[in-house]
């Protein structure tokens, strides 16, 4: 629903711009066009975290083979229960499952299948707009909390008690971009470094713009002539926060809360005005409707990303942080618990498809979405028809500027010798320093070294060149 901005709103906007400028936020230079979007002429990166260590091998299975001792047979047998088959399933049963539920794909001699319920992802891969970066190494602890933190910090070697800044925040500093947190609580990925002490242990939140819901952002205003008690209290609080804020130092534990109020009030005016001119596209609106396969949280994240792309000039952010919390930690009944979540993301009527169809050409042309979790799983399924924690995982990159294909070893033959060993897992061979570093260099040339200063000693498969991953 479009709203005509009122004079009062225009005056508030001007005051808000003045206030933001006075606070040193000179990046705010709103420039909307008729569709409510500001033009996209630079890369835009969105990072989505799947918490729980998703089993990407379930999404991307090797092509089934009935020939014993081949990868396509041994791996399918080891994963029969996770595929919803009995542990001693016949070749015929496994092949039926392969034919019925996976869409064939190939890249560089590797034949594999993408879960049929993720048809949009298959289509995008076929169109050359999806890269699967395999055997990604983020953390070896198999501990959710530590691995998630290390992945978001972009620090493989951090210990259990290191709480540093995020690689998204470091990238933002390198590229002079804010980072918009589209989650209820900003993820560590968004935390920036202290610009005066840019080591991993220092955190600075000044570049984080929290937008958990772009359509319900600002704080309510009080009428000029309060009549009701709540208006009186609201007017008092507006005055109070404005005055008290300047007396609270940046190191105070109360400072962030004062900052919330300031951002919600000052930025809220600008965001509310911009959003008034941005209709929710039908495809994204449909995600919230009865009958949608997409849950509310994911639908909100996608709409938020759309809105963030529209108003990137208002918030000065070309880096976005999202999360999708679902049944990724699939220790039991993996087929039942995980496939619904994958479908919500990657089906033709799923969240990503809706976003992609709704975006204007220029926004879509500059957007790269990276999706992944904190670690992978073990090679063999377990007695609960699921899989247990492992190491190596797959990062999925989607976008017009992605040079589609499979990067890294998708199904290393050496796994066959280990597949029946207790705890044997997918090895991480390609450090996040290089994988995320490739994103950094695309986003901001030569920033990899700044964001991942230790990349030179980080492991990478011999012969793997991630330099061509982005910028197609």
């Amino acid at each position, binding site marked *: 629903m479009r709203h005509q901005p009122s004079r009062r709103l225009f005056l508030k906007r001007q005051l808000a711009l003045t206030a933001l400028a006075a606070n040193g936020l000179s990046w705010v230079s709103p420039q909307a066009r008729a569709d409510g979007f500001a033009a996209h002429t630079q890369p835009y990166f969105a990072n989505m975290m799947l*918490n729980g260590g998703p089993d990407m091998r379930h999404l991307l299975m090797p092509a089934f083979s009935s020939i014993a001792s081949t990868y396509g047979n041994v791996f399918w047998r080891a994963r029969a229960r996770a595929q919803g088959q009995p542990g001693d399933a016949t070749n015929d049963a496994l092949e039926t499952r392969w034919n019925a539920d996976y869409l064939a794909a190939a890249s560089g001699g590797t034949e594999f299948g993408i879960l049929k319920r993720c048809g949009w992802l298959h289509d995008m891969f076929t169109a050359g707009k999806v890269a699967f970066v395999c055997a990604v190494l983020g953390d*070896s*602890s*198999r*501990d*959710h*909390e*530590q691995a998630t933190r290390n992945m978001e910090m972009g620090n493989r070697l951090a*210990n*259990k008690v290191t709480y540093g800044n995020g690689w998204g925040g470091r990238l933002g500093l390198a590229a002079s971009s804010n980072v918009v947190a589209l989650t*209820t*609580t*900003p993820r560590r990925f968004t935390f920036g470094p202290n610009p005066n002490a840019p080591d991993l242990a220092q955190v600075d*939140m000044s570049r984080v713009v*929290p937008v*958990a*819901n772009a359509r319900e952002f600002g*704080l*309510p205003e009080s009428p*000029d002539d*309060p009549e009701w*008690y*709540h208006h*009186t*209290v*609201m*007017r*008092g*609080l*507006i*005055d*109070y926060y*404005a*005055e*008290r804020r300047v*007396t609270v130092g940046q190191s105070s*534990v*109360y400072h*962030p*809360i*004062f900052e*919330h*109020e300031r*951002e*919600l009030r000052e930025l809220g005016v600008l965001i509310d005005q911009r959003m008034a001119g941005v209709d929710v596209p039908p495809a994204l609106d449909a995600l919230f409707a009865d009958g949608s396969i997409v849950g509310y949280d994911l639908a909100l994240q996608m709409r938020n990303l759309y809105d963030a792309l529209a108003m990137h000039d208002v918030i000065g952010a070309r880096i976005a942080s999202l999360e999708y*919390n679902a049944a990724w*930690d699939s*220790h*039991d*009944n993996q087929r039942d618990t995980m496939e619904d979540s994958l479908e919500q993301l990657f089906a033709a009527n799923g969240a990503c498809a809706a976003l992609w169809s709704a975006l204007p050409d220029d926004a879509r042309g500059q957007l790269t979405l990276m999706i992944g979790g904190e670690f992978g799983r073990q090679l063999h399924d*377990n*007695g*609960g028809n*699921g899989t*247990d*924690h492992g190491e190596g995982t797959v990062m999925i990159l989607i976008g017009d500027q992605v040079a589609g294909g499979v990067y890294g070893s998708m199904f290393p033959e050496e796994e066959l010798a280990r597949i029946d060993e*207790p*705890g044997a897992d997918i090895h991480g061979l390609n450090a996040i320093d290089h994988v995320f570093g490739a994103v950094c260099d695309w986003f901001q040339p030569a920033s990899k070294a700044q964001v991942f200063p230790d990349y030179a000693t980080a492991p990478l498969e011999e012969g793997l060149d991630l330099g061509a991953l982005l910028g197609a």
Partner: protein
Amino acid sequence: MCQPRPVFNIFHASRVRVPYAVLLALGALWLSASAVLAADTAPATGALPGLPAVSNARWNDTEVRKVLHTFAFGGHASDAQIRAWAAMTPQSAIEQMLTFAAHNLLLSPPDRRLKREKMDTRVQTLRGLGNFFASANSGNYMPIDRRESFLRSEWNAAADTWSMAARVRGGNPFRHRVGYWWLNHYLVASHTAASTWQLVRYYDDVLAALAANRPFEDIVAVAAVAAAINQQYGTQYNRFWDGTCYCNEDFAREFHQLGFGILGVGDSDYHEFTSIKNTAKALTGMRLTSSEAPNPEWEGERVVFETEGHVPGAVEIQRKSIAGAAAREKIAALADISIKHPEARANLPIIIIQGLADDEISSAEAQALRTAWNAMPKKNLLRFLRAYAISKLFHARARTKRLNSIERFMTIANRFADSNIEHYRDHFGIWRLYWDEEVLPFVPWHEVFGHQTGVEAASSAQIFSKHYNATTQDIWRYLVQEDRPKDWRRLMPNEGHLTVREAAEWLWRRFVADGLRNFGALERAHMYALIAHGTDAAEVFSPTTPNGGLSLSAIQSAAGQLRLTQLGNMRLKLNHTNADVRATANQYVGTAFAFMIATPFMLVQEGG
């Protein structure tokens, strides 16, 4: 740990033939009774090295309030009781303040206005309270249209019952604050997986073990094999047959990691490929059954520990041989070993204090906590918390505890309500917590890794705006109760015969509990104006230009200081002979209250 002899062995030895059903029934009785009767206990009192107590001189009303805010959601102690505790030595006071008994009538005196309720004699388990609140008992003041929600067949009964248990006068909010932490942040069972019956049973079993002074590791062992944990992790399906473990290792890993903070650092291969794998084997042979839940297999609140399907013989975990006929015995034995593990000794005390009281523990503070924790031969959580609560560490300025949404809501509600009726009629609108902030007890944001933390709440602009909007736009719930103004005389000292300054300071001390540290000129000006005139400070200090706001410098000017003093010296009209005047005076106090809880100082607690 001493292993109790099962009753059935005695009957076999005497060759008395007993019907199998009787044996089963006796076994069931034993299973429940032995949780308390046969266990070790650990002393709950005594100083601990590493946690020297604050001096008697330092121990005052503010320190007492900080303990109550952190460990009892504010509690219900009267101002007089708080002064009494402040006048005692901290060591004596804390033994009265923090107990795991069902009732603590000093911390939570019963609501004497509700004559039939007799909450001080009611069973305080979640099961017992749920039954009571759902009943037609004449002492039940819960509105009839709300009673059904406390039935365990209702989807939110566990959360609804818990939120009452932690707020009603006549119980023990400390016990429920710890119970909340245990199930929502420590060894989590989520309502997205576990049934209401399972959650309630788990909660009650943990609190019973705490009240019985069981060693901490025993309580972890009780929790580890609870039906709720089984259901959460799917462990009840784990079976060991013919040398093969048909298991998932989910809880096998989390038992070590979440229960004891053991990650296998420096020994990762052994931890991963032996300890975790064999813990999965130890967690075999359990089956759910029920006394109440209609669907035993997936809702059942009781666990049967079978030898069939359980790994025969001992298993090696943490380089020890762990023996036991069934899962329960093996896990109990394992817990005894795990509590001594170097990582547990290092990490558990940090996990506990970080979850309850301090967001930012320095390495020196961590060492102090470890010293205290490891000084206990048998770890007693109550002793540890008591020692910590009166320690220089807890009361140090460096300590920071940001309130999560639940902590904030419960603390404000506890300090605001003067009668249980206010909770029963949901004056505080707990639905806002559930639906606006999307925070439900027992539905943790991060599943088994715990609920929304205080750090998350504080770093979320959205959570801030929800609280801010609820406080301002829905202010009437603080002003009016059942079409009558809230009567602040019921809580205020001297029955409300106070000056504006005294009332404002009393409010700040009661709710913010910082000893007026952050109650500066701006806070005073705004709250005095609201209490005295029900209007914002700009209108009072600058009546000709109210839209210009009120600056700090204006308050600090000579004219501003004079005005502030004048306002502060005005007397409240809470005892005026005219009912309308009294009503207005009460509403003015309510607006000041709403203003106060919307400031950042209500959302974070500092130690000093």
